[in-house]
């Protein structure tokens, strides 16, 4: 059906990113999974990071789970109150929440007999910032295009 269902989040990445060619790569490590950050520390954790990314996106690939994230971004919900919102069993919802929890997209805490679920805003943001990975690929492509065009100037060959 509607493939465009989405989280109602305004991630930081929505802002306009402008970088001049030749600038150091515009990387905000706190908002990235960090794979394109060039440092030895990051190289060491790349595999772990990759696993985490896979986990996050596996978690977000399900419509119910995305909806749970959306709701719990707006406020804490108990698993019981979530379960009445969907046409599935309490156990099924509990399982969905567990997947989200493993991916660190939500956190859970006990309150009396209830389990309260809350989305972890930072992880959700970083997930969406994955578009930034693709952005880096395209920045490099544009750089290479520019190099090709500049080569024309250097050789005086402007076709």
């Amino acid at each position, binding site marked *: 059906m509607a493939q465009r269902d989405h989280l109602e989040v305004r991630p930081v990445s*929505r802002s306009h990113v402008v*970088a001049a060619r030749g600038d150091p790569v515009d990387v905000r490590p706190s908002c990235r999974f960090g*794979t394109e950050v060039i440092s030895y520390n990051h190289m060491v954790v790349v595999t772990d990071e990759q696993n985490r990314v896979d986990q996050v996106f596996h978690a977000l690939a399900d419509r119910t789970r995305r909806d749970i994230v959306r709701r719990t971004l707006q406020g804490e919900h108990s698993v019981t109150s979530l379960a009445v919102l969907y046409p599935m069993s309490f156990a099924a919802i509990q399982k969905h929440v567990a997947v989200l929890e493993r991916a660190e997209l939500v956190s859970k805490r006990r309150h009396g007999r209830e389990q309260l679920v809350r989305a972890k805003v930072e992880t959700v943001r970083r997930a*969406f910032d994955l578009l930034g990975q*693709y*952005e880096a690929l395209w920045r*490099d492509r544009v750089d*290479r*295009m520019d190099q090709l065009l500049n080569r024309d100037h250097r050789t005086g060959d402007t076709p």
Partner: protein
Amino acid sequence: MTVTSVQKDPEALTLTIDAQFDAPIERVWRLWDDPRQLEQWWGPPAYPATVSLLDLSVGGTMKYHMTGPQGDQPHGWWRILEVDRPRRLRFTSGFADETGEPNPHMPTMLFEVQLSERSGGGTSMIVAIEFSSLDEMTQIMSMGMEEGITLAMSQIDNILAGSVGTSGGDSA
């Protein structure tokens, strides 16, 4: 100077790249239209691209593969939807098996390239890339990320070798 801006719209699953080049529109079009030019910028330095077929007419096809440091060769294709040379190009892009046949199980993306003359000379290029679903975006991201990692690694190699440039250099 080339100034690039990138707009990311996670809700619409769209990435828009805005670039300015100090070259005439016909010249920038050739970056897309000439296979030898295209393969010099499409693949990251660690994954040089080879374009085996390029037919930029409606219904036409582009076929390419990239060659990774371990000899792995991911294949891909474009299917041309609209052409208004030298201003506009619309195509779907996807992945292929090792014979170059489109792989229907892999995600596709919709590309729209728009070139226009800038007042005062030069060309502006807008590339809009639309993913068709979050699942597909996920799949592509994880593939793109592997490229990103390889790219970062090759850059570290350069730095260790005492080379100052980190932009990938002239790999062609």
